């Protein structure tokens, strides 16, 4: 059951826009995550930088896209990570950024 999707998204929101949060992400991620009420699964996904699972858990795609950019992921790898997440964990569980194409369908060629 999703109980804290809001908190996971709030973490991504803070990270994407705040240089001090970004600095702490690099030096003390566990301590940074302590400030958010996350499920164990969400916390694990964030600690592992698991784009696929974060996507499936229902994070807003725009938050996730900026996060992937922050991590320096190439565009094709980011799209592949989301597809892999759906393959591994099943359909997106919340929100309006669900996948409508097949896992082997590459509409933009990548």
């Amino acid at each position, binding site marked *: 059951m999703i109980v804290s999707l*809001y908190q996971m*998204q*709030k973490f991504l*929101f803070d990270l*994407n*826009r705040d240089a001090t949060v970004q600095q702490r992400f690099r030096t003390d991620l566990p301590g940074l995550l302590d400030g958010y009420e996350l499920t164990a699964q969400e916390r694990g996904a964030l600690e592992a930088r698991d784009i696929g699972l974060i996507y499936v858990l229902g994070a*807003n*795609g*725009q*938050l*996730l*896209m*900026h996060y992937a*950019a*922050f991590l*320096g992921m190439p*565009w094709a790898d980011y*799209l592949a990570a*989301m*597809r892999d997440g*759906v393959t591994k964990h099943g359909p997106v569980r919340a929100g*309006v*950024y*669900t*996948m*409508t*194409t097949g*896992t082997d369908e*590459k*509409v*933009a*060629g*990548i």
Partner: protein
Amino acid sequence: MTLVFAGIGSHGPGITGRADMADPAVREPFYQAYRGMAERLAAARPDALIVVAAEHFANFFMNNMPAFAVGMADSYRGPIEDPQWLGIPRTEVPGDAALSQRLIREIMQSVDVAFSEEWKFDHGIMVPLNFLTPNYDLPVIPVNINCQGPPLTPLHRAWAFGAAVRRAADSVPQRIAVIGTGGISHWPATPDSGRINEAWDREFLNRWVHNDQQALLSYTDEETYRDAGQGGFEIRTFITIAAAAKGRGELLHYAPIPIFAVGCTVGVMNVAT
């Protein structure tokens, strides 16, 4: 003075960030159309540019999400995204706090808006500015309509907001330009990125060009989500421009460019009374 310019344009981050992945034969005519819009904007000699954008959680989040927000600062910074990823260097963009305040006071006579004395621009504003005012020498007044975190701003309120923007622009001594930025149908930031419903886009743009208020406001969010993806919610920004300009639109460019994740659109609308 009055509203002196109105236009619309796409803002997908791939437009600048993934430029090298696009076929130059489809990319360049789109860029050229955007530059053509820039020339028309300059010819209108605006004192300030209102950018009605659909932002993506650069400033506003579900802890306190306004249906409408207007910037009220003398300068802004952007992009918040990794500059290399977006293909646009970090920069300072001039604003005009006094003008913002005057416009906001008038807009508030008919539409409740939030105001913000700090605002970080994301691709929703930076990508259009990159083409329209690449030297960042025109004061910008940022506007956000909530197209991201449901419950979304109703379409008819976006229309009412556009009418209020027009009334406000006509009430100040400055020459005001306004643009709306967003996608039409698209499925951005999903594995479907690149999916575009061209028929739906062309139908929407036809309604926009004819400034058919009733047809523009007849979409339900359920229909839009089904046919045009969550990116289609950004039609609110184009609807606002139609309400503000009141004229007939001219489509300068439309072409689906999947690697840019959107049907790339540039349009202007004559300002009618």
